[in-house]
């Protein structure tokens, strides 16, 4: 017996991930996130660069989106399987050489740019 049996649980969540487009670190995405305020529900958009994807292909998969608004950078971690994500849009594919873009944290403005990956 092994942990393969965990796939029985993962199977139920397969469709949720399948409905989002595939993206990777360096891409610019727009996440439509449902927020409950009292009884009302509204959708908040969070647009930024995908900094990392953690625990890929497990139920605990999360991705971190970083955006700089004004002078303040905001990083937000979304579990990919949460039912609160309404939609993920991939706006721009980025060309990066590593899986975790921690180096963006130390950079500002022009230095924090990511080249666009052009389709072949």
């Amino acid at each position, binding site marked *: 017996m092994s942990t393969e*049996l*965990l796939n029985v*649980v993962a199977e*139920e969540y397969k469709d949720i991930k399948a409905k989002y487009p595939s993206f990777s670190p360096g891409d610019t995405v727009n996440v439509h996130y449902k927020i409950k305020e009292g009884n009302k529900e509204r959708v908040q958009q969070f647009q930024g660069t995908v900094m990392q994807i953690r625990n890929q292909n497990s139920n*605990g998969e999360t991705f971190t989106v970083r955006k700089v608004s004004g002078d303040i950078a905001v990083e937000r971690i979304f579990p990919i399987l949460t*039912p*609160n994500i309404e939609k993920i849009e991939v706006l721009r594919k980025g060309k990066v050489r590593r899986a975790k873009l921690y180096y963006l944290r130390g950079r500002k403005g022009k230095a924090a740019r990511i080249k666009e990956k052009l389709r072949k």
Partner: protein
Amino acid sequence: MPGLIGRKVGMTNVFDENGKSIACTLVEAGPCVVTQVKNEETDGYKAVQLAYGERKEKNTPKALQGHFAKAKTTPKLKVVEFRDFRSEFDDKVKLGNEIKIEDIFNEQDYVDAIGTSKGKGFQGVVKRHGFGGVGQATHGQHNRMRAPGSIGAASFPSRVFKGMKMAGRTGGDRVKTLNLRVLKVYPEKNLVLISGAIPGAKNSFVILEK
């Protein structure tokens, strides 16, 4: 309490309807075979003995071989006695009967899980008993950051009391975690998804009690 024997598969997480992530443990439990039913007349107390897992006959002690033969079943790996298996399960509890997960556990039930915690080896008092350690590295301290401090008074009682919390072997104990919620039962795979963590390593035996 009615229960089942199983094995810990591993941990994962699921989301509830509010989008909250719940850490949970998957346990492969049962099917278990009833190998003995104890009653008040012959044994002095009521209990049900269940057996779980397969093993080869050549690896089974002769005494147990006979015991399993009596219940007309193949040799099993783990035998556990459950006291006071509630009477509502009386029709299921017959010698040689197989008890499955759906017979006992339903979704939203509260269960207790018993396992053998992971062995940590010889550990100091900070890890073993949650001592605070010495709070600071300066003011004359230099190598006593995780020391236990005083273990008693002086000429009276001029001994150390029994049971004083000290460093030593940690983990590897039988641990019972109470009131865990059953999130889901997979009858066809003999799996049960339980909210929270269960003591023990992956693949180790787990006893679930309702």
